[in-house]
């Protein structure tokens, strides 16, 4: 067999909600007979939507790393922390936690933006190489992306706890918002991307 049979070549659609395989009907807006979700041959405007979300995330990655995420005011001094300086503070008390935060907050978002960029670019160029690897890269990125929220949660707890006005006072910086936006945008970017586009270029 020269050409592998695909859903498209056999006239079959797969429901992305309940994974039922359905014979494609010539209707303007087909729906899954089992769960009534919309059926698509491919997710609509997938490449453009993913690329747009990814560009926004890449731009916001800069303020997320350079703006302070947290201000600490104590009776002795005022401090401001970026994500990176927060990691350095943690390094003094517990290095495994510092490494964890470094990976989750700095490495993972960057890796996610770069990997999605590679995947989108290769689909746009219709590259036939390393498809299995790119497919696995995409799924891994989708899985680890959520861990970047780690620092946002840590900051939200510090803000809630350290409100002892006479001694210490912690407030949120705009960097935290930019950072959370990067996580949300990359999550949506991964969700709007249709993996099947990776397999469309002729091998």
């Amino acid at each position, binding site marked *: 067999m020269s050409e592998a049979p*695909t859903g498209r070549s056999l006239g079959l659609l797969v429901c992305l909600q*309940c994974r039922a*395989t359905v014979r494609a009907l010539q209707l303007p807006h087909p729906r899954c007979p089992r769960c009534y979700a919309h059926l698509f041959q491919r997710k609509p405007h997938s490449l453009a939507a993913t690329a747009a979300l990814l560009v926004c995330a890449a731009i916001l990655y800069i303020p997320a790393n350079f703006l302070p995420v947290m201000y600490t005011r104590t009776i002795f001094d005022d401090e401001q922390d970026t994500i990176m300086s927060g990691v350095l503070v943690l390094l003094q008390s517990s290095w495994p936690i510092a490494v964890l*935060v470094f990976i989750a907050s700095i490495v993972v978002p960057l890796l996610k933006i770069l990997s999605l960029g590679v995947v989108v670019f290769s689909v746009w160029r219709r590259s036939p190489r390393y498809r*299995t690897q790119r497919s696995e890269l995409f*799924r891994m990125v989708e899985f680890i992306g959520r861990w970047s929220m*780690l620092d946002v*949660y840590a*900051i939200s707890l510090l803000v809630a706890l350290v409100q002892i006005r006479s001694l210490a006072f912690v407030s949120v910086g705009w960097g935290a918002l930019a950072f959370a936006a990067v996580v949300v945008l990359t999550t949506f970017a991964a969700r709007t991307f249709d*993996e099947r586009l990776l397999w469309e270029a002729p091998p």
Partner: protein
Amino acid sequence: MSSVIVCPSCDLAHRVGMAPASVGTRCSRCRAPLQRPENGNIDTAIALAICALVLFFLSNAYPLVTIQVNGTTRATTLLGAALGLYAQGHAGLAALVFTTTVVGPFLQIASLLYLLFPLRSAREAPGQNTIFRLLAQVRPWTFVEVFMLGVLVALVRLSAYARVVPGVALWSCGLLMLTLAALTSRTTPGQFWRWVDRNRT
């Protein structure tokens, strides 16, 4: 007799036997999981959901952590984390934290209970399809396990300056994390629709 299923990740068509898979299968081209093993007893799923609901209420009712500095004590709850952000004028950030730690888990547990109870006695809950699709939208936004690690990071940062006392909610939240993971793996879309199909035929 065999039927054809299509891989949702690469569109490759596969011929499969009619017997339900006892082991998981992967797509032969892109290695994405194709069929998950059938490990589904609906009673187990309902039990896990009830357990998760109890743990969810415990996690919200009791303080998560308490800190003591120079005789001053301060505690926070799960909701307090989101409220603190809101009080400082970061409504967007507060909404995100609130959605991923409170609304997400609650909707997931409540909608599963609503769907599974009727299904158990071979009926279908009104609006079943819509609610299951809503559940699929909510699921990726439940970050309880990430939140737990975030609590740990915050405690390590604070332990240098204050005495930190873990609260009841910290333990129940940890158990909620495990229960939710078990519940999610037992109520995958494939499994859920298998229960529905079993009733319909």
